[in-house]
């Protein structure tokens, strides 16, 4: 199986000053294991589910550094319904925030999950437990799925849905773009960040994002502790957003080919994303991809938007500029963006549409979007509802994100700034939501508590 290109090596390790052994590992760094599966479970028998939990604990990977990559790793998270089922006491349940308690389905209108993306079209119900399984290869993945997590009702759990995912050749997404470049640099995490991962400081520098933006129990960008549920869920845990997003690769290819953009389809596609297919940022190289730049970990993410107020290089409405406006004018030198960062751990699923094909082959493919944050509403939901699915914040009226936004009637125009600007109207639906959930990924301490192993 081909994985991510070696030209962009994983971020190095550096001494951490938080308790890595208490934190589930996928939060602070991606495992870079090529095969993955997301198991969505519903608990039918609490005692048996607890036994299953206890049995799987040794496989749960923490954030401690590895001498050698394990052959397989799992991580565990729970929905509010899952916590209810497991019998958390009412006070503790009530201490979780409204977005989490309501769940993703209830937030559909706000999130733009309407029409074909609406919850009544989703492929699976809300899981109680999400088991994320990662493995070095497909065989190890099946082995792990089969051995520890025999997800049958005998174990007191019912398997709702298995979603497999894998790295596509060259680390690209199904639209053909190198993904997984930019991540927030998290203070104290022991991951050596790349320039651009953090928050603008001064004209050229960067600083790390406060730990509390991603993990509960540490000060956040406001220098206070983020609101947290009762112990033991108040420390080293994080909220998880899971969304299965199907993509229509053929529609994307036809859309950029037929738009009549004077710069050509490749440039239009780059203007939509904000990067060239190889990851070169438009902010640094607006005229074409630059292999040297895209292979240089110190440069591939080292840019801002302060010097491009009109979006002449990277359009105001492009996917990456909406999703992280960095130091764009009116984002207070980056201080505003700093409160709306998410750790992305999504993975592609389904086989790529062969190059050049312009008709949909009916295959299911897309992105299992996963993000981690300490506040669902302030971070993921704000990005999704106000930046991706609305253009107002960027002076773009109602127009939504040209790559992943909901194509509401009257909101499907894309403006490519320039002299003159170019307008592309009638963008088709490129992404359809197929199901998802809000979950909580507890600390190891809290996991042991849930497994009744803490005495």
């Amino acid at each position, binding site marked *: 199986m081909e994985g991510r290109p070696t030209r962009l090596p994983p971020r190095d390790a550096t001494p951490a000053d938080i308790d890595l052994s208490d934190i589930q590992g996928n939060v602070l760094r991606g495992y870079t294991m090529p095969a993955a599966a997301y198991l969505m479970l519903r608990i039918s028998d609490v005692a048996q589910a607890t036994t299953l939990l206890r049995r799987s604990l040794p496989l749960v990977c923490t954030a401690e550094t590895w001498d050698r990559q394990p052959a397989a790793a799992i991580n565990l998270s729970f929905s509010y319904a899952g916590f209810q089922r497991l019998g958390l006491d009412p006070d503790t349940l009530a201490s979780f925030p409204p977005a989490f308690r309501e769940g993703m389905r209830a937030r559909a209108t706000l999130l733009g999950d309407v029409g074909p993306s609406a919850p009544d079209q989703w492929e699976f119900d809300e899981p109680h437990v999400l088991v994320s399984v990662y493995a070095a290869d497909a065989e190890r993945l099946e082995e792990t799925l089969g051995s520890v997590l025999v997800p049958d009702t005998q174990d007191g759990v019912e398997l709702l849905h298995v979603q497999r995912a894998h790295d596509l050749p060259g680390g690209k997404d199904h639209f053909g773009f190198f993904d997984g470049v930019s991540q927030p640099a998290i203070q104290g995490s022991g991951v050596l960040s790349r320039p651009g991962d953090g928050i603008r400081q001064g004209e050229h520098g960067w600083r790390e994002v406060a730990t509390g933006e991603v993990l509960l129990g540490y000060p956040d960008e*406001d*220098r*206070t502790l983020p609101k947290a549920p009762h112990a033991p869920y108040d420390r080293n845990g994080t909220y998880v957003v899971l969304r299965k997003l199907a993509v229509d690769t053929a529609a994307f290819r036809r859309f950029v080919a037929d738009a*009549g953009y004077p710069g050509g389809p490749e440039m239009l596609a780059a203007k939509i994303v904000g990067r060239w297919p190889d990851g070169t940022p438009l902010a640094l190289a607006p005229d074409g991809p630059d292999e040297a730049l895209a292979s240089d970990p110190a440069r591939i993410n080292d840019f801002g938007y302060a010097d491009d107020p009109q979006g002449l290089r990277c359009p105001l409405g492009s996917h990456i500029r909406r999703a992280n406006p960095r130091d764009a004018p009116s984002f207070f030198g980056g201080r505003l963006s700093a409160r709306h960062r998410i750790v992305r751990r999504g993975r592609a699923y389904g086989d790529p549409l062969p190059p050049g094909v312009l008709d949909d082959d009916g295959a299911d493919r897309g992105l299992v979007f996963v993000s981690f944050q300490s506040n669902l509403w302030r971070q993921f939901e704000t990005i999704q509802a106000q930046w991706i699915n609305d253009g107002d914040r960027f002076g773009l*009226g109602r127009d939504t994100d040209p790559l992943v936004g909901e194509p509401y009637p009257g909101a499907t*125009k894309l403006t490519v700034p320039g002299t*003159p*600007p*170019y*307008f592309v*109207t009638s963008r088709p639906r490129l992404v359809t939501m197929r199901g998802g959930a809000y979950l909580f990924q507890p600390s190891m301490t809290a996991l042991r508590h849930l497994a009744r192993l803490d005495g």
Partner: protein
Amino acid sequence: MSNENGTAYALTTYARVETGHEDALDAYLAALPTGADSPFARLDGVHLARVQVFRKLVHQGPHQRPDPLRHAHLVVSTTFNGGLDEHLEALAEHVPECDEWWGHCVRYPGRGDRAAFVAYVRSIQRRTSLFSTPFPTATVDDVRQSIALRAQVIDFAAATQHLSADDLHRRFLETF
């Protein structure tokens, strides 16, 4: 700062909610229609209106003293162009919903006696201490017209981007 900014006026009112009425009031407000069906859409000059219950003041971080409220308060704030008296008259005339929300508050006299209604709202008015508006001089009508014009210009630009300079000129004169 004051209640006025250019030709715009910001009315801010705090009314003490009758004890025990908080949930009913919240439920009533949550069910109120917004957008074109909002009660305030019946008034010509309203830029923005907000009706909400404050049960406690949000703690904004370490530099702020936590500020618990002894009673819940109904906060009604509106931004409009024109004078306060006309606005209060229009509220009494066209927004019977006032009786519902302020009906849960102490000493509300109803809309029947106009003078009493106006005196009541004035009695619960607070000075607006931070009033910034993107449209200090434009009336609501001006803003509506500008939005329509903007949409028209954008549609025009999108529809004509492939035309030659001459054709573009002709089409411009035809359209505007």
